[in-house]
């Protein structure tokens, strides 16, 4: 069993320390396949012991980036440094990096033990040490009873564990995880996410995970790079990405978002006023990154859970009020989603936590409602 060592991580933020050198560095890396640019002049620093996630839709270049680090693809331009050493020209079998494959890629003609021992045998480790390490790994992933089985005699979750144990057995400096939990069902996936975090903390390795699942990225990682079309749209902790999205793309890709379009009519001290002709309202909010200037086309972005919904009109003079009619209600158990149709026809979502067990909700279909939010709940992002 792995002991939880939670508190160690609480103050973990090496990226904020300018004296620390990055452990992995992608330096102006470009990868082209014929006419297609998979990774476009990308620079990225990852620190030792970090659990780093590359998040993005399929085809955004995240897998290519990982495969370049593993050595299966060569950068067209730029270079990759690991612990200060340039990796170009080093073949995959000589890199101190191991990968857990999306398909698990377990050797079907070897037992679970054989699979885990494979990398150690290549290292030339002697048999007794191999046996000790294999036993350790089996214990780590709780598969002691399955050592003699072949991969096809295991369930999907067990295979996933064997793949993890095999990629960890050599104690690589960096573990690469390519959509490691994609094939598992939701419950098992959530459990495994926490196990991965525990294992990473226990072994003190640097983990790089590629995923298209934003919940997975937010759960396991210290920092996330959101990728789009071969470039990084934003790097930050889960809460930075969620609460301070750098662009509409990030706001839209990570989590649920309401976007209300308008024209900037005033900017003062980082606070912008947005005139939204479409919904006949004026919104005052923090200006996001980029040149939010008077006259710019922009949008107000706010997460549904930060929108408060009420049947009663707020006192006159309250800023940031939208009114509309309840169009749809979605009951999800823990929360309810209200889709409110504004005057101009656009829809704003508001979620409300269901804190009590009452069956009748005060707000129902076709009610006239008012939507309000705290002054710092949303952000104005350029188009």
């Amino acid at each position, binding site marked *: 069993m792995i002991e939880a060592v939670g508190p160690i991580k609480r103050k973990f933020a090496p990226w904020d320390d300018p004296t620390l050198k990055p452990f992995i560095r992608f330096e102006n890396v470009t990868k082209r396949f014929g006419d297609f640019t998979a990774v476009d002049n990308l620079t990225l620093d990852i620190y030792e012991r970090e659990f780093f996630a590359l998040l993005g839709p399929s085809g955004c270049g995240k897998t290519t980036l990982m495969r370049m680090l593993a*050595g299966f693809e060569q950068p067209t331009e730029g270079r990759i440094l690991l612990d200060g050493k340039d990796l170009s020209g080093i073949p995959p*079998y000589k890199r101190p990096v191991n990968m857990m494959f999306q398909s698990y*890629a377990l050797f*079907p003609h070897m037992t679970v033990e054989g699979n885990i021992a494979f990398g150690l045998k290549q290292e030339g480790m002697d048999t007794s040490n191999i046996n000790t390490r294999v036993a350790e790994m089996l214990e780590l992933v709780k598969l002691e009873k399955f050592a003699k089985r072949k991969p096809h*005699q295991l369930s999907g979750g067990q295979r996933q564990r064997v793949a993890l144990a095999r990629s960890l057995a050599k104690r690589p400096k960096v573990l690469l995880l390519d959509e490691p939990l994609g094939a598992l069902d939701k419950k098992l996936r959530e459990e495994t996410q926490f196990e991965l975090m525990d294992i990473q903390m226990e072994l003190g390795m640097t983990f790089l995970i590629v995923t298209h699942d934003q919940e997975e990225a937010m759960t396991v990682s210290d920092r996330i790079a959101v990728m789009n079309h071969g470039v990084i749209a934003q790097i930050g902790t889960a809460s930075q990405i969620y609460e301070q999205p750098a662009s509409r793309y990030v706001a839209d890709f990570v989590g649920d978002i309401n976007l209300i379009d308008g024209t900037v009519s005033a900017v003062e001290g980082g606070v912008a006023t947005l005139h939204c002709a479409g919904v006949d309202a004026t919104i005052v909010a923090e200006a996001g990154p980029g040149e939010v200037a008077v006259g710019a086309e922009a949008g107000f972005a706010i997460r549904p859970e930060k929108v408060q919904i009420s049947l009663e009109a707020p006192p006159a003079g309250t800023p940031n009020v939208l009114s509309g009619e309840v169009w749809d209600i979605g009951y999800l158990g823990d929360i309810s989603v209200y889709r409110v149709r504004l005057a101009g026809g656009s829809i704003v979502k508001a979620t409300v936590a269901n804190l009590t067990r009452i069956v009748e909700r005060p707000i129902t279909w076709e009610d006239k409602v008012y939507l309000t939010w705290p002054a710092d709940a949303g952000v104005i992002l350029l188009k």
Partner: protein
Amino acid sequence: MNKTTSWFNVTSLVFGFAFLYVPILILVVYSFNASKLVTVWGGFSTRWYAELLHDQAIIDAAWVTMGVGILSASFATVLGTMAALVLDRYSKFHGRALFSGMVYAPLVMPEVITGLSLLLLFVAVGFDRGFWSVVIAHTTLTMCFVAVVVQSRLVTLDRSLEEAALDLGCPPVKTFFLITLPLILPGVVAGWMLAFTLSLDDLVIASFTTGPGATTLPIKIYSMVRLGVTPEINAISTILISVIAVGVIVASVLSHRSQVEKEKAERAVFLAG
């Protein structure tokens, strides 16, 4: 599917099989004929098989055939597997279409032309015709069949298995022997069997490229038949047919069984949840 037997289907089945197997069946039956006259049934006997054992020329021919078959099938398996790997792995090299066309061309090339061109080659380079020239010729003939069989196996192989081996520190050549070869082995063995049986029954190319002292069984049979069909020929042909049938059956069972096993294992895991 229509389950009631129609007369038309039964008739076509009977005629189809009769067309294919009645000649062979007659040959097999007459190989057990006690009479020396080929067309007259004189009772059951295995005397012709016993007599074969005393015919040194036929025994020599059988040894030559076995030697040629085993060697040429082995060479063809190595070359054919390499060709299949290139075709499967390096999808975008220059001249790939030409290469794959040229690998498969011998499949449809008339044997007379293959035989003639090989003969010309051996004469041109001054290679002594005999046992080894037949081995080389049969390697040429059967290599493409091995390539086809092995390539069909490679297509179903997950590339990430090899990448995983590389990733775990295994150099490429070792990866081939530790991972790739064991996984495509059924295809490679099936390819070898196919090459072996093709070599056993080849007459045309062997007769073009053979020389003194290297008479294969088909050449021997053909030359004996020109002097009249004897029950002995029926017996040796029956043996040849049996060997080839066993080879083909083993080859197809090998390539089929691994597929079935895989499906069975997957089903078992699925049911176990």
